C-alpha cells in the first residue's frame, strides 16, 4: 500500500546520488529539486507543484537520484514503490501520456545539446538544411540508397527549397551509381527505387538526367521549359520508367501555366492508357482542380469524391481532396 508521509521544513526527502526506488506524490507544502546543470555545472532549482509526482525517472530507470529533494515548507506526500506506482498509472493512462510528453521533451532537449556540442554549424536548427545534410553525408559515404531516400524526402517536403536543385543533381548522381551497381548498398537501393526496365546504362541515365532537369525547371517556375523537357522524354520513349513519370509531369506543367482544358485532356488520355499509373490519384486531383478553376463545382466535386474512394484515408492526396470538398461545400 502507498504510505502517507509528512516532512518538516528544511528536511531532505532524498539526496543526489542516493539509490532509492520510491516515487513521491506531493499533496501539500513546498518541495524544491536542487541539481547541477549538466552542461554548465551551475546549481539549479525546480519547484514541485502540488499534485505532481517526483522521483519517477530514477525510480523507474533504477539509477541514482540526479537531484536533491529539499522540503521548503512542511509537506505531506504519498510514497509509492515502483509496483504500486505502476498500479496507479496503469489505471490512469492519462498520467502516463502526460509524463511521456514531458520525458519526450527532455529527451529531445538532451539530443539537441549533444548535437550542439558536436556540430558547430547551424544545420541543427534548420530541418530543411538538416535533411539535405543527411543526404549529403550518405552520398559522400557512398551509401546511395540512404542518400536517395533523404534527397527524395527533401524534394517531397521542400520542392522549391534552397537546396532543391542540388538535391535533384545528387539524386541523378546517386541513381547512376545504384544502377551501375556501385556503392555499399546497391541491392537495397535498387529495390527501393521503382522497378526499371532493363536497358543500357547510357540511355537510362540520359532520360533520368533530363527528367530531373525538367523537375528542376519546374521548381524554378520555368514551366514551359520544363514542359518541353518532359515532352522530349516521352517522344524519345527510351526509358519506360521516366516516360511514365514525365506523362504525369506534363499535366502538372499544363496546370501550372493555366492550360486547364489541355491538362484535363492530357490526364484523361493518361488515365485511359495507363490505368495502373502510380500517380493516377494525384492526376485525378489535378483534373478536379481544373474543373474547380473553370467554375464547374459539380464536376470538381465528383473527382474529389472519386479520390476518397480510391486512396487510403490518411494519404496526403485524400487530405487535400477532403479539404477541397470542404471548401466547395462551404461556398
Amino acid at each position, binding site marked *: 500500500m502507498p504510505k502517507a508521509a509528512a516532512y518538516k521544513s528544511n528536511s531532505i526527502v532524498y539526496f543526489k546520488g542516493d539509490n532509492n526506488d520510491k516515487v513521491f506524490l506531493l499533496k501539500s507544502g513546498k518541495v524544491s529539486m536542487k541539481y547541477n546543470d*549538466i552542461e554548465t555545472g551551475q546549481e539549479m532549482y525546480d519547484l514541485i507543484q502540488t499534485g505532481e509526482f517526483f522521483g519517477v525517472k530514477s525510480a523507474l530507470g533504477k539509477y541514482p537520484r540526479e537531484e536533491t529533494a529539499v522540503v521548503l515548507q512542511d509537506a505531506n506526500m504519498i510514497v509509492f514503490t515502483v509496483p504500486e506506482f505502476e498500479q496507479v498509472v496503469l489505471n490512469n493512462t492519462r498520467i502516463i501520456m502526460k509524463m511521456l510528453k514531458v520525458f519526450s521533451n527532455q529527451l529531445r532537449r538532451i539530443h539537441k545539446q549533444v548535437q550542439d556540442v558536436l556540430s558547430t554549424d547551424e544545420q541543427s536548427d534548420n530541418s530543411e538544411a538538416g535533411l539535405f545534410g543527411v543526404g549529403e553525408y550518405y552520398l559522400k559515404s557512398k551509401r546511395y540508397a540512404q542518400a536517395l531516400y533523404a534527397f527524395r*524526402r527533401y524534394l517531397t517536403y521542400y520542392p522549391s527549397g534552397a537546396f532543391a536543385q542540388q538535391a535533384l543533381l545528387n539524386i541523378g548522381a546517386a541513381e547512376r551509381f545504384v544502377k551501375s551497381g556501385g556503392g555499399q548498398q546497391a541491392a537495397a537501393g535498387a529495390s527501393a527505387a521503382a522497378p526499371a526496365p532493363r536497358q543500357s546504362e547510357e540511355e537510362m541515365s540520359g532520360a533520368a538526367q533530363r527528367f530531373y532537369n525538367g523537375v528542376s525547371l519546374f521548381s524554378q517556375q520555368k514551366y514551359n521549359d520544363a514542359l518541353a523537357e518532359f515532352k522530349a522524354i516521352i517522344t524519345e520513349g527510351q526509358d519506360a520508367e521516366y516516360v511514365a513519370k514525365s506523362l504525369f509531369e506534363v499535366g502538372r506543367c499544363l496546370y501550372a501555366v493555366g492550360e486547364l482544358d489541355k491538362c484535363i485532356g492530357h490526364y484523361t488520355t493518361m488515365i485511359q492508357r495507363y490505368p495502373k499509373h502510380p500517380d493516377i490519384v494525384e492526376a485525378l486531383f489535378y483534373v478536379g482542380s481544373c474543373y474547380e478553376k473553370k467554375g464547374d463545382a459539380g464536376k470538381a466535386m465528383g473527382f474529389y469524391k472519386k479520390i476518397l474512394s480510391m486512396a487510403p484515408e490518411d494519404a496526403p492526396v485524400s487530405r487535400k481532396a477532403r479539404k477541397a470538398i470542404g471548401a466547395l461545400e462551404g461556398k
Partner: protein
Amino acid sequence: MALDLSMLNRFAVTFQKNDIMFCEHEPGDTCYLIQTGRIQIVKIMGDIEKIIDILYPGEILGEMAILEEAPRSATAIALDKVTALEFNRENFDVLMQGNPQIAFKLLKLFTKRIYDQKRRFMILTLDDVQARVADVFLMLAETQTNADPNKDERTFNTTIDDIAHWAGMTTDNCRQVLNHFASQRRIEIYPDKIVVKNINDFARFVSSKRKSKVE
C-alpha cells in the same frame, strides 16, 4: 509481459535490410513497434554518423514525433529485414489507452534513454580528448553488470569506430589517443577487443579533469 498484439496485425509493415524507415529532420507522424529484425538509430553530426542505439523486437521507435509533433530527431535504418506495427497519431492514442502496459513500458524506456543520453553528454562536456576517451570506457564499464567490481582490469568488445562515435571525435584522432594510452600501458588494443588495465585509474583521471572544468 505477454501482450496479445494479434488484433493489431492490420498495422503491420515490412522494411528490407538497409531501408531507411525515417530520416532525421523529416516531419513524421508514425511510430513503430518492432516485431522482428533489428533497427539502427543514427544521427549525422558534422562528418560523423553517430550510432545512438540499436533496437530489438519489442522496442518502440518514432514515438517522439507523435508525442510532440516535431521533426524526427534521428534516422532509423533497418539492419535486417524488419517487420513492425506502424501507428499514426490517432491510433497511437488508441493503442496507449487500450494497452496501458505498452504505455508504461514506453515510460520506462524513456527514463533509460534520458539517463543514457545524459551520460553520453557528460562525455562530450570534457574538453580534454584523453579524458573523453577514458570516460567512454567508464560509461561502457557502468553497463557491464556482470563484471567483477573488485577487479581493476576490464575488457571491452568495442571497435575504435564506436569509441570515436561516443567521444564525438574522428576515428583517426581517437586512434591517436588510444595509441597514446597503449604506449603508457594503460590499455591493450586487440583486433576484436580493448583491455583497460585499471578502470579506477581512468575514473580518477576523468574526475580530476571534470573538476578542473567546473572551477
